[in-house]
């Protein structure tokens, strides 16, 4: 959570945080969108098939519009996310946090063709891995960025424990790190958790699993469960 956090300063002088999304969730969202588009193609073909050749013509126009503009309509009119992105909790914004507009959305989606080259988003992936904000070529040209929509409140997954006040006042980044540790505790084997807790022995004054337990206690205190 810390290294994908991008602060943006608003005109009110307050900093808001954007959590940029990496290639993996975006890939899954793209696959979901592909599936939905295929369904739309099939869905369009059936009624238009009745109208013979004219229907064929309308179907081709429909194909063209869906091919190029399916993401644009959703990004501009439906809150910055196609159904695929929405189900992965992603949203497209301008780099300054404002919602994406027509011009930017069209640019980033037309350039999807270049991102797809030479095969399966090769250039797009390369750009995403090089850029700090995981922007593909379309994002770079349009000034947009794909972020996680933080729907889960921080701290909901922290296991409950007796709150323990940290011996020193921690900076905001340090607080976040402690809470993040407690949140992700369940995903690590015990040895890993002990190793990580061992990095902050001066803070916890405990070794091994006691250090881990103290950190969880501090996370509880920092979350306000006092």
């Amino acid at each position, binding site marked *: 959570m810390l290294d994908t956090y991008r602060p943006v300063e608003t005109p009110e002088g307050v900093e*808001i945080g*954007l959590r940029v999304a990496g290639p993996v969730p975006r890939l899954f969202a793209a696959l979901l969108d592909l599936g939905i588009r295929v369904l739309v193609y099939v869905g369009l073909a059936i009624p238009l098939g009745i109208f013979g050749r004219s229907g064929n013509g309308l179907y081709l126009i429909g194909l063209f519009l869906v091919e190029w503009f399916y993401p644009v309509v959703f990004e501009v009119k439906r809150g910055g996310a196609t159904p695929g992105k929405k189900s992965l909790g992603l949203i497209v914004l301008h780099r300054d*946090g404002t919602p994406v507009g027509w*011009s930017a959305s069209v640019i980033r989606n037309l350039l999807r063709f270049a991102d797809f080259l030479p095969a399966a988003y090769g250039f797009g992936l390369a750009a995403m891995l090089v850029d700090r904000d995981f922007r593909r070529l379309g994002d770079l040209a349009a000034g947009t960025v794909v972020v996680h929509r933080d729907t889960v409140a921080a701290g909901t997954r922290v296991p409950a424990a007796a709150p323990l006040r940290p011996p020193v006042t921690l900076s905001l980044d340090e607080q976040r790190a402690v809470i993040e540790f407690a949140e992700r505790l369940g995903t690590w084997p015990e040895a890993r958790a002990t190793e990580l807790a061992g990095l902050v022995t001066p803070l916890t004054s405990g070794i091994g699993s006691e250090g881990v337990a103290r950190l969880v206690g501090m996370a509880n205190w920092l979350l*306000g469960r006092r």
Partner: protein
Amino acid sequence: MSREIFEQRHEPQWATLEQSLGRLESGAQQTVADFPELYRQICHHLALVRHRRYGADLELRLNRLVLRGHQQLYRKSGGGLAPVLAFARSGFPRLVRAEKRLVAAAALLFALPLVLMTFLVPRNPELALAVLSPASIEEMGEQYAPGGSLQAGRPVDSDVMMFGYYIRNNIGIAFRTFAGGILGGVGSIFFLVYNGLVIGAVMGHIRQMGYGGHFFPFVIGHGAFELTAIVLAGAAGLRMGLALLSPGRLSRGQALLAAGKTSINILYGAAVMLVFAAFLEAFWSPMAQPAATKYGVGAILWIYVFSYFLLAGRQRTS
């Protein structure tokens, strides 16, 4: 002030903002009274929470509220029809004139291969096979031969089908030509040259078969819009590539952003031209008319396109 008291005191305001945001985001309401003041207050609370270190969960909650409020307050308003008309009347030709060097470069990249193939293919018919498939060569022969399918007059629903086909095919080509430009302009150059070769091969093959009398009246009408639009799409792509290769005094990222804005507008204009071209190609060109009429209309359209880009939108100097 402790965190609990802070939360107690300000929770009603946060709940109100949450409600207002819900209404704005669902589109149920376009404006909410006192929204800017409320938003600024919550911004202030967020700053306090950060400074006083009340906790990451509270900070995250307020951060989310502020982000949503920011997005509602700084939404870009729609433009309506007036900017579109102004673009069509003067914005588009001015934009094209501003990029005239790139447009000229794109025109050369497209026209030279085209003219080359038109003259080489009658001499070496096998050359056409380098860019066209044997199936499409056969199909062309069938369409443009005397008494071929294009002469007999098509039923209207075929016209609609071809209209859809041209929209998808031609505008797709224009979009791809544009998109290729971000790869240092290489993609655009490739598409311009390739399309020039293909169209030139078609024309050369038609001439070699002697079907020119049927083919050229057919294409001259919509060609004015279609060929110009492809050149413009290529120029738009080259503009993007140029921003990456030669950003001038800006950083590459900034240059790309600025180029994107002008390029996409040129592409919009090109796409509209291609819709006209598709319409003409599907409904007007196949009509059985004497060749003189078709050449006449074609000439008028070409003159119109050129004078539009050369003259429209210029200030009158008095």
